[in-house]
């Protein structure tokens, strides 16, 4: 039996979260090797289509990280991201893609430890959900249900 290694796409805003990830590097923290970062200008640039594209291309989880509320470089881009992700998660609810496979969180520039915490938690969540299988496979809720 092979161990399930989740594949996670992290969409990071250029101004805060991407620097948070860099800060984790500058502090030589231990990060999971299964999280792969993509730089975007703003979390408000992340469309639901981008998230679904990642799932389609084989991601088991997608995490969108923006600036802390009130700190967005473009004023309210992170709020737009929040609105979309809340609605998208409601849509995911009855589908084979469990809503917990999509996370949105805030990491400030320089918050390396917080970045490490957030992505490690994400890996654990996805590990417990298992792989997003091709074809049809409805998932039971995480807590047994």
């Amino acid at each position, binding site marked *: 039996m092979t161990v399930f290694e989740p594949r996670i796409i992290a969409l990071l805003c250029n101004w805060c979260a991407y620097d948070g990830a860099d800060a984790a590097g500058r502090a030589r923290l231990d990060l999971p090797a299964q999280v792969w970062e993509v730089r975007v200008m703003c979390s408000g640039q992340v469309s639901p289509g981008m998230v679904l594209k990642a799932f389609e291309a084989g991601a088991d989880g997608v995490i969108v990280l923006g600036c802390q*509320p009130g700190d967005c470089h473009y004023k309210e881009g992170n709020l737009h991201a929040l609105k979309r992700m809340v*609605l998208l998660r409601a849509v995911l609810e009855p589908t084979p893609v469990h809503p917990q496979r999509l996370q949105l969180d805030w990491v400030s520039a320089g918050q390396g430890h917080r970045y490490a915490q957030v992505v490690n938690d994400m890996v654990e969540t996805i590990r417990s959900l298992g792989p997003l299988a091709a074809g049809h496979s409805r998932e039971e809720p995480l807590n047994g249900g």
Partner: protein
Amino acid sequence: MGGRPKIALYWCAGCGGCEESVIDLAEDLLTVAEKAEIVFWPVALDARYRDVAAMEDAEIDATFINGAIRLDDHIRMVRLLRKKSKRIIAHGSCAHMGGVIGLANLFTPRQLLECAYRQVPSMADPPGPLPVEGGDGPRMPELLPVVKALDQVVKVDAIIPGCPPPPETMARVIDDVIHGRLPAEKTVFAHRKALCHECPRLDSRPEKIEITRFKRLHQTRWDPDVCFLPQGLICLGPVTRGGCDARCIGANMPCRGCFGPTERMDDFGAGAIACIAAMMAGTDEPALAQLVDSIADPVGLFYRYCLAASVLGTGPTP
């Protein structure tokens, strides 16, 4: 060969409305029969699988396929038609994107059969065997694990969107085919811009919309001259390809997206989510979640016609 162009029509999993869009040609259908040779049309003509199989490859000029791919038989049939046809035209929303049929992908085939044969209130008989549970009689076609759109099974050359397609569009495409003008590859018989562009209510749409509660039609009295969205009624016109002449809007009903997305949008529902989310009032997650709760059946709303064409309906590409 030479002579009259040959056309075929086939009905996969659908409601029959697309067949109706052909019948709607009325007397013009006689011209079609005169100008073209209809070689295969199960709903109207007695021609079988073996008759098609006996044809030369690419012998049929154009085949119109409506309905979603639901059964193993559909795959067998559309693959054969693909081989025998110069052009495959996805006819209607179900062939185009899986259509309403695609919403079945929220359930397993087993759940669907259990529901249809055992749980529906009209089922008074004691539980009998499900059709898949064998017996010695003739084999029933099997449900595929998921409903698919036509282009997930065979290459599709052109698309006539709509649920059902407007009769004028059908007439135009058939007229082209019977006069030997086959559609160019990747033709979509609709407009490039979204429906708003042709919507009579476009100018009533304000610059900024902030929806504090989503309403359903029966919960409100809405102004028939004003854009639905500022009235809290979800209309998918901004996401949906135009070309239907805003028929539903004209009947004072919001757009539900049967024409599918514009050419740069891969996932119709994703575009709809982005668009509607942008209008949601609120700044914190609990308030937004509460607002989203006022949308009855979000997946059924945003993916009414296109779930089978989305990763949410069929899972990741293997």
